């Protein structure tokens, strides 16, 4: 029997490389991460509260409000659009299916962690939402655009973001990020030298 090997979205799209893609432009780093299972939870009409209770019992966090994320490192619920949340990490508990349409999205999205001091300056070149730290805090999320791509952007720390785009677009995402990263990096160098 053929031996099947899991590949990251970037590996699949580019047909090359091995292991998760990592791109560094000092002082910024973009790296592909494996978030575990991704499952969309779309509550049936009037079932949002019941779903939130079931989610809390099964995975330890309630349903997130719009533009927010709930949960801990091991299991997170990310607001993912109108009447939809994305369960990140564990496989979904069977009890959730009573209140929501539960759909596996694991292979549909690529997840990239972008970090570095003042990294919001990089995203400011690509995303039409104010992502500065005093406005867009840790645990805040937005469904928005990165360049021309539909994306989910979440702040995971003082100098780090999680960016999700459709799996097929991960190469474009890295290219766009690279362009923005070298731009900001060069400006800082020029300011430092001057």
């Amino acid at each position, binding site marked *: 029997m053929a031996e099947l090997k899991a590949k990251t979205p970037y590996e699949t799209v580019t047909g090359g490389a091995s292991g998760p893609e990592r791109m560094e432009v000092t002082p910024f780093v973009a790296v592909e991460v494996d978030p575990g299972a991704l499952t969309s939870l779309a509550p049936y009409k009037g079932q949002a509260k019941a779903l939130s209770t079931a989610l809390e019992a099964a995975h330890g966090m309630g349903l997130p409000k*719009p533009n927010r994320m709930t949960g801990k490192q091991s299991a997170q619920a990310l607001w993912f659009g*109108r009447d939809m949340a994305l369960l990140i990490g564990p496989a979904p508990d069977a009890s959730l299916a009573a209140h929501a349409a539960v759909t596996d999205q694991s292979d549909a999205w690529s997840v990239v962690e972008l970090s570095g001091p003042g990294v919001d300056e990089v995203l400011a070149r690509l995303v039409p939402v104010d992502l500065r730290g005093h406005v867009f805090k840790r645990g805040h999320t937005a*469904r928005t655009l990165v360049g021309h791509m539909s994306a989910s952007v979440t702040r995971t720390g003082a100098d780090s973001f999680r960016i999700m785009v459709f799996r097929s677009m991960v190469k474009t995402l890295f290219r766009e990020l690279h362009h923005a990263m070298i731009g900001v990096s060069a400006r800082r160098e020029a300011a430092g030298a001057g």
Partner: protein
Amino acid sequence: MRITCPICGERDIREFTYQGAAVALDRPDPEAGDEAWDHYVHLRENPAGRTRDLWYHSGGCSAWVVVTRDTVTHEVFDTELAEEAKA
């Protein structure tokens, strides 16, 4: 122009897709007659001023939004979810 999505908050116009006048919320009765249907399907106002139209938050939360705005000044007066909007 910036549009306030009832779910996401104020967002850049790049995130939205324009659909057209909000007449779709006022669909005539199937038996309303040719004139009413002709008007519904083909005839549109083209106001210089206040207008009410449907926008899709395609680059955001995927909600349909009814936007009341001014075509001359680009001022946005009001936004509401299409689901909750009255024709």
